């Protein structure tokens, strides 16, 4: 089933890396991009996304802030925080928001494993 993945990262390179892995592992899925949290929320106001992949370290608000905003309106959406900043405190906050943590530099295996889990979670939720 085709899914829409929201990729939020202020780095174009980082978005390119995610898109490159998605094109290899989930070629039929659609990718929508935002360069920051505000743009991401605007985008979600206009169109639906099934899964969110969010960078942690961004100007204005960090990725956990955005994950909390999304989670407040959507309890089922699979969310992953993508960062090399795997400090215990950040991992714990991600867990509180029921968000996965995928370490950068991204590997195809790690992201593909999250996406498989996300697809399963959405099917179970009847979405």
């Amino acid at each position, binding site marked *: 089933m085709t899914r829409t993945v929201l990729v939020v990262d*202020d*780095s*174009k390179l980082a978005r390119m890396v995610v898109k490159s892995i998605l*094109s290899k592992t989930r070629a039929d899925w659609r990718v929508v991009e935002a360069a920051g949290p505000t743009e991401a929320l605007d985008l979600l106001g206009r169109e639906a996304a099934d899964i969110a992949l969010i960078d942690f370290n961004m100007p204005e608000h960090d990725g956990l802030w955005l994950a909390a905003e999304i989670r407040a309106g959507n309890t089922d959406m699979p969310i992953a925080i993508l960062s*090399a*900043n795997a400090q*215990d*405190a950040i991992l714990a906050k991600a867990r509180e928001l029921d968000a996965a943590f995928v370490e*950068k*530099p991204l590997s195809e295996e790690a992201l593909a494993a999250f996406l498989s889990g996300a697809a399963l979670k959405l099917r179970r939720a009847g979405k």
Partner: protein
Amino acid sequence: MNGGDDIGNEDGQLLLTELERDALTEVINIGVSRAAKNLSRMVKDQVHLSVPRTEIMTRDRAVEWLSRRENSSLVAVGQDFRGSFSGQALLIFPQKTSLELVRSILDDTLSLEEIVDLEQEALAEIGNVVLNGCLVVMANMLKESLNMSLPRVMRGSSQVVLLGADEEDPGEMVLFLTIDFAVRARSINGYIALLMDLPSITAIKTLIRRYLRGLEET
């Protein structure tokens, strides 16, 4: 970790395109974030990072930038790296927070005298963990090997810290990248900085183009 226009030298000649700068900043950001994880384990507290700033400027302007932000005496741990691109990585913080940083990684039972005794060694170790962590990720992502010098501890003004004992040419153009870090629970703050000269920027431009081509080909 991007934004803004392309960056160039003072003659306006573009040295890095927007995408190249974005790529370089993201690679360094991943390195520094990994380093923050290591530092966080050492200080047993969360380490907060700002988004990186990347600019091409003279060494003098870099000194000016740091002096404006920190007018007290500084401590820095520096490590040189050499490979297809070369430069200097620095962990810089105000002298007044140096002991607190050292205290945070040592046994709580040590006396102030013992902590002072260990300060130099502990600072070098913190610098080693943070700077190596950052440079290794950068080298691996760009598929290059880098030789890293042993860490050295420097004390003094921003001039001493950024120009060093070798008295680097203050007029030389460098790529100056900085990230603020803070351990708020212990009121520790500082900077992770990277300085690279122009030949290194040209070399890194080539590596980044190769890295981007690799992404486009997949």
